[in-house]
């Protein structure tokens, strides 16, 4: 910072020069900061902040905090974006892979493999909820399926299993989740969207959906739900997004 009382500055330089130099220095400093990822050394500090944030987020979390949709809100319908990581829409190929089933295993007393028909026979719930995308958009949808807590009861999950991994057949996509969020009453393993069977664009045959998690935590194209003692990251989590991703 320049000393304003420096007489070479005040008397030696025309005031317009002073302003030009001042603004040039300021814009140089700004340009250096812009469009950059910030200093590499900050990476550790950001990780530390993320760990602390997870603590705050989990402390705030309650099963009684329910997502409510304003009655005036319209359903997204065909305006709902569909994301996947494979080059094309992932579709379960029955001729190559046999019949689709959902494996629920890990730290459970009664591991199961459920067909779509098995899932549909379990108690059905429908939630009209918000979809919170990490990008900032929201969409209103009605998800129909089985409450996750119902599945946890069915397999008699070990209380020591504090985390769940949701795995898919969309390449290596998976995301792990804390058990509190997974057992939230609005977390469902969904096979229906807006009154119809789930389409491949939105995760058919079944996907996890919860308004208490950002979109990327809600794995589509489910193949396996694993109860675990520790989190194991996830597709986007390993690429730099927050692991918690809660709303």
């Amino acid at each position, binding site marked *: 910072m320049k000393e304003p009382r420096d007489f070479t500055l005040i008397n030696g330089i025309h005031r317009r020069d002073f302003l030009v130099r001042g603004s040039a220095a300021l814009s140089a400093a700004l*340009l250096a900061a812009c*469009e950059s990822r910030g200093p590499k050394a900050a990476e550790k500090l950001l990780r530390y902040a993320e760990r602390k944030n997870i603590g705050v987020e989990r402390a705030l*979390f309650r099963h009684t905090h329910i997502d409510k949709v304003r009655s005036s809100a319209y359903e997204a319908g065909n305006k709902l974006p569909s994301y996947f990581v494979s080059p094309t829409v992932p579709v379960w190929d029955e001729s190559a892979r046999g019949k689709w089933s959902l494996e629920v295993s890990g730290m459970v007393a009664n591991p199961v493999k459920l067909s779509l028909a098995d899932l549909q026979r379990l108690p059905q719930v429908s939630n009209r909820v918000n979809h919170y995308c990490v990008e900032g*958009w929201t969409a*209103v949808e009605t998800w129909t399926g089985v409450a996750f807590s119902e599945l946890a009861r069915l397999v008699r999950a070990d209380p020591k299993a504090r985390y769940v991994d949701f795995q898919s057949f969309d390449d290596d996509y998976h995301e792990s989740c804390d058990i509190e969020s997974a057992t939230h009453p609005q977390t469902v393993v969904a096979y229906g969207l807006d009154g119809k069977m789930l389409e491949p664009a939105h995760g058919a045959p079944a996907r996890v959906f919860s308004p208490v998690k950002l979109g990327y935590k809600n794995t589509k194209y489910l193949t396996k739900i694993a109860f675990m003692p520790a989190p194991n990251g996830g597709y986007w989590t390993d690429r730099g997004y927050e692991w918690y991703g809660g*709303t």
Partner: protein
Amino acid sequence: MAKKRHHWIVRVTHWVNVVAIVIMVGSGLQIFNAYPAFARKGELFCCYPFEHHPVPAWLTFGGWLAGARNWHFAMMWVLAINGLVYLTFVYLHGEWRDLVPRKGDVRDSWQMIKFYTFRRKDHPHQGKHNALQKTAYFLLPVAGIFAVLTGLAIWKPVQLAPLTSLFGGYVWARYWHFITMVTIVILSVIHVFMVFAVDPYSIKSMITGNYDPALSPEARNARPFYNLLPKRASVTAATPPTEQL
């Protein structure tokens, strides 16, 4: 003679705030660019004329969405805690008296505007700040509090649902968060412009804490770009104005 103008807590929180605001705005705009619109999917949004137009990349910070979010969610604590320290200090130290709006402020602001637009010759008499400064320095913390609250509302729209509802739901809370950011940017840009155009000597006072009242805008009768240089008492004394001879 130099006079103490800013307590060290005010100076430290000021510069921490500069860093925090620049990073929060830059990373916030990077996050915004991931979905540069406010409409819920399947709806239209009434009140933003630039829906789906991203802001220029050179205004952004964090490199990509995840990087910007990590910066935003780390720096938010610095911004909030720093703001809390400042507000607590200003309250306990009585400096809030220099900043809260008072009855004569509208009249005094009008006089400042008249002075800046050459419709008044002499600088209006002022205390620590002129009426326009007071307004800006009062609005900035208010906007800061609003930014934190709307930010919390869109960070935790389910867990803090009552707060989000208070701002009209997620879509509107996100909009108010954006509008608050624009307000803070406008106030800050005017502030920095006026520092350089009217009172560059105040930069020193925000670093060392000392300020020479003889260099104040009131003493210099300074308008933007006018009377930036101090009146040099020794020179004027040695050579009296010729027209008076």
